[in-house]
C-alpha cells in the first residue's frame, strides 16, 4: 500500500500544538507511538531520547506526529524498526541542518520530513516508483545538501593547501635530479 506525500505534509501543517510544545515529554510521546504501533515498548531504548537537544526533541515530536497515523503504520512492513530509525538516526542528522520551527514555516521542510518518514518506514509514496521517490527526496534533502556543501568546501580547502604547498620555498628547493629530461 502506498501513502500520499501530500496527505502527510497536510498533517504536518496541522500539527496539534501539544506536538509543538516545549513542555511536551518526548519520551512519553515516542513511547505512546511505539506502543500504538506494536503493543510493546522498550524503556531502555526510549531513555536515550532524554539526552536530545531542544531542536532534536522538537523535530522528533514532529516526526512522532507524522507517523502516528494508522494508515501509514499499517502500510509499513516493519513500523517499529522504521520509527526507531526515524527517531534515533534520521532526526539527529536532520537537526544538525534544519530548525524545527522551519517545518511549520517552509513547505519544502514539511515535504522533506514526510518523505523521510515514508523512506524510514519502507512505504512508497503514492504514484512514485523507488527511483522517482529517491530523486524527489534528494531535491528537498537538507542533510544531503549540507554534505554536498561541506564536501565542496573541503575540496576547495584541499586545493588551496596543495597550491600553497607547491608555492612554498621548501618545495621549490626540491631534490637533486640525476638525468635531464
Amino acid at each position, binding site marked *: 500500500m502506498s501513502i500520499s506525500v501530500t496527505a502527510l505534509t497536510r498533517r504536518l501543517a496541522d500539527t496539534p500544538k501539544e506536538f509543538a510544545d516545549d513542555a511536551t515529554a518526548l519520551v512519553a510521546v515516542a513511547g505512546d507511538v511505539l506502543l500504538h504501533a506494536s503493543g510493546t515498548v522498550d524503556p531502555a531504548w526510549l531513555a536515550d531520547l532524554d539526552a536530545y537537544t531542544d531542536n532534536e526533541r522538537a523535530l522528533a515530536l514532529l516526526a512522532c506526529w507524522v507517523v502516528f497515523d494508522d494508515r501509514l503504520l499499517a502500510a509499513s512492513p516493519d513500523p517499529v524498526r522504521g520509527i526507531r530509525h526515524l527517531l534515533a538516526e534520521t532526526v539527529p542528522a536532520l537537526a544538525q541542518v534544519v530548525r524545527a520551527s522551519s517545518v511549520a514555516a517552509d513547505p519544502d521542510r514539511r515535504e522533506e520530513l514526510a518523505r523521510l518518514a515514508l523512506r524510514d518506514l519502507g512505504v512508497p509514496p503514492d504514484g512514485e516508483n523507488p527511483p522517482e521517490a529517491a530523486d524527489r527526496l534528494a531535491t528537498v534533502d537538507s542533510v544531503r545538501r549540507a554534505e554536498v556543501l561541506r564536501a565542496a568546501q573541503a575540496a576547495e580547502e584541499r586545493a588551496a593547501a596543495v597550491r600553497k604547498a607547491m608555492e612554498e620555498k621548501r618545495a621549490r628547493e626540491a631534490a637533486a*635530479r*640525476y*638525468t635531464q629530461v
Partner: protein
Amino acid sequence: MRPDYPVPDYQPMAATALTDAERWPALDPAARARIERLRTHPRAPRYNHECGDRLSPAAVASLLDYRARLADPVSWHPGEPPAWVGELVERVHETVPRYRRARPRSFAELTPMTRNDLLSRVDEHVPDDAGLSDLIVYRTSGSRGPAATVPMTPEFCALDLPVLQHVLAQLGVAFDGSGEVALVNVYHQPVAYQFASASAYLGGAGLLKVNLHEPGWRTPGDVVAFLDDCAPQVVSGNPISLARLAELPLTHRPRAVVSGAMGLGRGLADRLATRFGCPVVDVYGITEAGLIAWRADSGDHRLLPRRLYVEILDAEGNPCPPGVRGEIVVTCDENPLLPLLRYRTGDQAALEERDDGLVLVDLEGRDPVRFRAHDSSWVNSIELTHVLSPLGLAAWQLHQDADSSVTLTLHQVDAPPAAAAVRSLLGDVPLRVVVADLAGDAKPQRYTSDLLGALVD
C-alpha cells in the same frame, strides 16, 4: 645579471630554504663530511644553490625494493593495459578531484590529459590522501609550450637512480656509488644551478650539478681539475653539454655517459663513446613521468619496466596499431602526488613488440613538422633528423618561412655538410645557415615552420 643574456642569473643561495638535516635526512657522518669536502674543494665551481636527496630511511628502503622489481620485464602487450592500470583508474575515481565527477566505463574512454591540464588546475590532479609535507616541485622544460609545475615526492624524483642502475647493469656497468662521487649532471648554458650533494640511496656517494660555462668557475682550468679529481662514475647531461664536455681535456674516464632532454644524434653518440671510452646511453623521459625509454646503440628506444603503460594515439585520440607513428601517451602510477592517466607527452613514435621487449620506433621528441621541398613535396622532420644526426652536430634548429626559405641554425660551429644534408632532401630551396648559441634553451624546439600545413597534427 648577465647583460648578454635575457634570463637573469641566479643569486647565489637565494633559492635555498632547508637545513642540511632536512636536505639529507638519512645520511651518515661520513657522507656529510663528503658533502663538506665537495663544498670546500679548492677547484669547485661557484656554487649557487643547495639541493639534497630528501630521502628518509624508509624511502631509501623503498627504492631498494623498486630496484629489485626492475628485474621483471615489461609484462603487457600494446593495446592491453596491465591489471594495475584498472586499479589506478578505480583509485583515482575515489581520491582525485578531477576524476571524481565522471567515471568512464573503461580505460579507453578516459579523456587523455595534457600539459594544459597541469597548467590550469594542477591541484585537481593531486590525490586527497597524498601527504603534502614532503612535496617538491619541478618545472617542465617548456620546449613544447608554457612550462608546467609538477608536484612530486623526493622518492619519485630519485627513481632515476635505480632506473639508471638497471640500464647500466645491462651494459655491464656497475653504478654502485663506490668512490667519492657517483654522478655529475653537466649543463652548458649561460644560467644554471650548481651544487654539491649526496645520495643516501647510493650509500652516501657524492652527486654534483655543474655548469660548464666559464663564468661559473673561479679560475679557467678549474672545471677540468675539479671533475678529474671528483672522478664521477657516471656523467649525465644533454647533447649540448656533453659535446662541450668532450672538448675539455679531462683525463678521467667515467663508466658511462647518459644523455637526455633532447634527441642524441648518432654522430655525437659515437664521438662521446670514443672520447670517453665507455657506453653512451640516450634516455627519453618527461618531468611528469620520469624516464620512459633508453638506447645505447643505433637501435630503437627500449621501454623501461616501470609501472608505466604506453599508448600511441593519433590526432583524434584513437589508438595507432603497432608500428604506426602517433603521439606517445603515458599512464604512470609511481608519483603519489601526481598519478598520470593517459598523459599526452607531445612526442611522437611508433610502439612495437620485439622478442626482447617493447620499443619506441623513430622517437622524435618534437612537433611532427614537415618541410616543403623545392619540388613541392613534403619532407618529414624525421627524415631530416636521419640525415643530420650522423654529422656529429651538438644541436641544430631548422625553420621554414612562409615563403619556403629555410634557415638552419647550428650550435656554435658551422658544418658545411649540414647544409648539403638539408639540400639532399629539400633540393634547391633558399637556404641560410646561421651559427648561434643554442645552449640557452634546455630542450630546444628543433623543427618549426610558418608554412600552412607544415604541422602534422
